[in-house]
């Protein structure tokens, strides 16, 4: 599932070195704390959420050669931990705010008309050669934004599938989902990512 990752690129470093770089981890932890404290006013609970998220994320650190991807992963886990804390305290409106709500998913079904066909303005266009995009720094900024904009559970689950390469049974077990829930979540995540990348990057063949 990890595909052909070229070993020859200079900037590659493996997950193990992220675990060893304490300065990097401390910077990351501070960013996480800042984020968590905005959502959870209780500093002890915020610290616990950050700690748990870091521990959870580090278990899979080997799957990541890149810091941006690792950070996106860590924050997806953190958001879910924070949502758990908020739910326990009955702060359901804040959970909605953090994780997205059913309205987000309604926006997805509005891509299709009443017969389930694409609305003309939402119909996917042809994208150019991805390899050309990959060489552009700005593409990765856009890509990261699109990933970060995935609501709720979608980011974590999608990354489990596409980064860590877990198979569906493993994801269902870890995330406590039924297989059909999982397919729905992945479908929504992909619809959303396709839309985001098309609008922000590929639209109208403006970019390769």
């Amino acid at each position, binding site marked *: 599932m*990890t*595909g052909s*990752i*070229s070993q020859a*690129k200079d*900037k*590659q470093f493996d997950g193990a070195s992220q675990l060893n770089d304490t300065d990097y981890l401390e910077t990351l932890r501070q*960013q*996480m704390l*800042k*984020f968590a404290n905005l959502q959870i006013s209780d500093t002890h609970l915020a610290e616990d959420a950050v700690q748990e998220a870091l521990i959870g994320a580090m278990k899979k650190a080997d*799957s*990541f*050669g*890149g*810091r*941006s*991807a690792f*950070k*996106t992963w860590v*924050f997806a886990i953190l*958001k879910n931990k924070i949502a758990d804390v908020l739910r326990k305290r009955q702060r359901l409106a804040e959970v909605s*705010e953090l994780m997205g709500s059913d309205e*987000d998913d309604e926006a997805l*079904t509005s891509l*299709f008309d009443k*017969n*389930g*066909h*694409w609305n003309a303005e939402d*119909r*996917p*266009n*042809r*994208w150019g050669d*991805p390899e050309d995009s*990959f060489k552009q*720094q700005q*593409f*990765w*900024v856009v*890509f*990261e*934004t*699109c990933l*970060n*904009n995935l609501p709720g559970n979608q980011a974590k689950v999608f990354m489990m*599938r*596409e*980064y860590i390469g877990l*198979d*569906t049974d493993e994801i269902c077990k870890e995330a406590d989902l039924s297989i059909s829930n999982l*397919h729905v979540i*992945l*479908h929504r995540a*992909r*619809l959303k990512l*396709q839309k985001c990348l*098309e*609008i922000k990057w590929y639209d109208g063949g403006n970019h390769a």
Partner: protein
Amino acid sequence: MLSCHQATRLASEAQERPLTFREKVSFKIHVMMCSGCRNFESSMSTLRKSMQEFASGNYESPDSDFPDNKDRDN
């Protein structure tokens, strides 16, 4: 006849499991006639490649601040 919503669902599920013969046929017929879904299907493989590239760290985005979850303008 598949709707586009159903076709995109199959295009997505095909990333996790092999489609049945029947599903494959329905899907192929649909995409022969529907460019939107054809493009969606090919964007699925681009998406997967992009995730792998991103994870591998061959390219990095500049270290931006933590994700702003209020940025949902798409």
